[in-house]
């Protein structure tokens, strides 16, 4: 078997044309997913069963099913429902990009909410008691004590999820989107050179991961500034 370097040189710029879409999928679903996750986490720790139970069921369903299946359900399944076709969200579900964002958001939201919950549970009870003894209200303790401390505690696991999400965006190519993986698959179909193309695609993801890792490392250093003697 031969390895055709010129093919890679030719294919790389084409694949990189999809980097914008990959990035849009990553950033949008990370932001929306984080908002969803905060909501779910607050429901989960509210101590009220009628908030906690739905959140737990949600988390179970979305962690218990493959993300590819979730993408297919949103993309192929939802348009079959009349109320979705006639609802105000139809412009989103009609569009494969919208479907990918929805599916990725719903999925990452479930995982991240548990990561955040881990951070919140990791906050020292004594610190919160000190706040209580000083007269800080519950919301004040949550905003000024729990949130900043939990954020630092949750960051390493959260970074893991962001990197995982980057690679999940590749699944968007299965519903016609021309992200980097989508473009790579088209090139493979034209050139019959899966080896060269997919290897170089893999390297592109690794380079992206490298930059995300470095960025997360910086954030971690900043948030952890008070943990160093």
């Amino acid at each position, binding site marked *: 078997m031969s390895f055709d370097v010129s093919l890679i040189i030719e294919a790389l710029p084409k694949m990189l044309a999809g980097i914008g879409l990959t990035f849009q999928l990553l950033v949008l679903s990370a932001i929306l997913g984080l908002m969803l996750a905060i909501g779910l986490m607050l429901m989960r720790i509210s101590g009220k069963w009628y908030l906690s139970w739905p959140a737990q069921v949600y988390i179970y369903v979305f962690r218990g099913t493959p993300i590819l299946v979730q993408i297919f359900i949103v993309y192929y399944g939802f348009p079959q429902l009349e109320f979705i076709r006639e609802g105000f969200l139809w412009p989103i579900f009609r569009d494969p990009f919208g479907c990918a964002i929805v599916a990725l958001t719903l999925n990452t939201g479930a995982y991240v909410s548990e990561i955040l919950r881990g951070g919140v549970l990791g906050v020292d009870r*004594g*610190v919160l*008691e*000190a706040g209580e*003894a*000083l*007269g*800080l209200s519950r919301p004040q303790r949550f905003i000024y004590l729990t949130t900043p401390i939990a954020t630092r505690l949750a960051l390493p696991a959260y970074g893991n999820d962001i990197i995982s999400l980057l690679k999940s965006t590749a699944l968007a190519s299965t519903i016609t989107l021309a992200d980097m993986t989508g473009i790579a698959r088209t090139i493979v179909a034209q050139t019959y050179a899966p080896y060269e193309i997919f290897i170089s695609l893999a390297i592109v993801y690794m380079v992206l991961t490298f930059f995300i890792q470095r960025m997360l490392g910086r954030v971690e250093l900043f948030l952890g500034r008070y943990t160093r003697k």
Partner: protein
Amino acid sequence: MTSSEPLIQMQHVGKHFGDFQALKDINLNVNKGERIVVCGPSGSGKSTMIRCINRLEKHDEGKIIIDGIELTDELKDLNAVRREVGMVFQSFNLFPHMTIIKNLMLAQRLVRKTPKAEAHEVAMRYLERVKIPEQADKYPIQLSGGQQQRVAIARALCMKPEVILFDEPTSALDPEMINEVLDVMVDLAKDGMTMICVTHEMGFARSVADRVIFMDAGEIVEEAEPETFFKHPKNDRTKLFLSQILSH
């Protein structure tokens, strides 16, 4: 309220953790300016008792009245009480993510609504009082245990409380740091601060306490002036306890 009324009144206070009775029929009055030392074996309910005073624990029997306000689930009253009652913990419990000065300013800003400049000034004044103004911009982890506990005392003082509760403030400290914290506490006592201290520092009890309270199995077993308490304990459980802690 009249000025002769005690600052803290505990009347027939009881507290259960499940089936375990942590406090039994506690009756205690503390007047303004009084210094009370609470001692007793571990698990005797000392910490639980003082934690009930600022409602970190809820009592389930009897009444607790602080400066004329009865402790109930009423949030407004609770906030009023917590403004009057400062607390210093065994494990310091400074806010780890904030610098020392911010630790001292946070509650002033949020609870007392003190303007920033004034809160800063008050914070610096109390840092000077506990003799570590130069540490203002450090994080808690960069300070020694003794320094952290002094910051915790300053943080409580910034709220200008009527009374400060000390929950074993020197138990987590290395021996060489105990005195610097006790010095600050003695200093406070001299200034007339009302204090309730759970502590095993008997030297401190002897020199500053107006009354020593001995607790065992959730009850106040004995209550006396330090002189009487140490020289002529009445109760057998007190005698046993004193012999155990004073024998070395």
